[in-house]
């Protein structure tokens, strides 16, 4: 079923960060900095290894206050490094059912600040083209149904 590729869900998260693009961008390639800021949802500590070049890999282990002592491991490969405007990497963890998903981050200049637009799609990197339509428009209609 090749048509499965054309409608995987896509998530877009945005935030304006009041710092220049170079600094916001560089934090994503720096193991020590990643370990300091990647503390989502109950993570109390993270360890990070990176090989920040296209084709290089990273590994982020997050330890959660209520989670398994061995932590949750996230791995991926840098797909695109275009400082300071675009960064893309694959992303694999138990929360992606251990399959490759794709993250694209755009860093937009906003009068000295940076708008970060992070797009995470469940598609693997080699199937990223031409899938956008389909998922978002269906959710609007179904959300009502799910919440009732």
């Amino acid at each position, binding site marked *: 079923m090749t048509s*499965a590729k054309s409608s*995987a869900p896509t998530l877009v998260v945005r935030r304006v960060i009041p710092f220049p693009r170079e600094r916001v961008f560089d934090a994503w390639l720096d193991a020590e900095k990643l370990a300091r800021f990647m503390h989502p949802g109950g993570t109390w500590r993270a360890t990070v290894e990176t090989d920040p070049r296209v084709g290089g890999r990273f590994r982020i282990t997050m330890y959660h206050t209520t989670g398994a002592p061995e932590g949750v491991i996230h791995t991926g490969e840098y797909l695109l490094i275009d400082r300071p405007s675009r960064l893309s990497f694959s992303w694999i963890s138990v929360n992606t059912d251990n399959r490759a998903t794709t993250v694209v981050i755009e860093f937009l200049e906003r009068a000295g600040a940076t708008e970060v637009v992070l797009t995470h799609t469940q598609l693997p990197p080699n199937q990223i083209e031409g899938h956008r339509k389909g998922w978002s428009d269906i959710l609007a209609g179904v959300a009502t149904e*799910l919440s009732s």
Partner: protein
Amino acid sequence: MPSTVDRRLDNVYAAIADPTRRAIIQLLTRGDTTVGDVAARFPMSFNGVSKHVKVLENAGLLTRRVAGREHWLTLEPEPLADATRWLEHYRDFWDASLAGLEEMLADEDAVRQTPASRRRARRR
């Protein structure tokens, strides 16, 4: 090796990849309907619609019950909920990470400024 969950999600994505099938789902969010009713709304043959209904049925997105000559369809949104759970998880995950990034950069500046401001204070 893809898990059962993967394969089920693949079926769901395949099912909703098609615009006609998405339209059928939208229609069913308004309530149960018959295959005949669905066919009447789309510019395609009854058989064509029937095939789409079967794909949705196989993906677990609808169930069918036969009443006389009519086949009634009911939307089963649970597989879509499974597919959106992934999105919910990562929405919080990246939101928190971007907030953490901003906080970290602010902390860096605070640390950087402290020795300088101390020096200034001493000079006074």
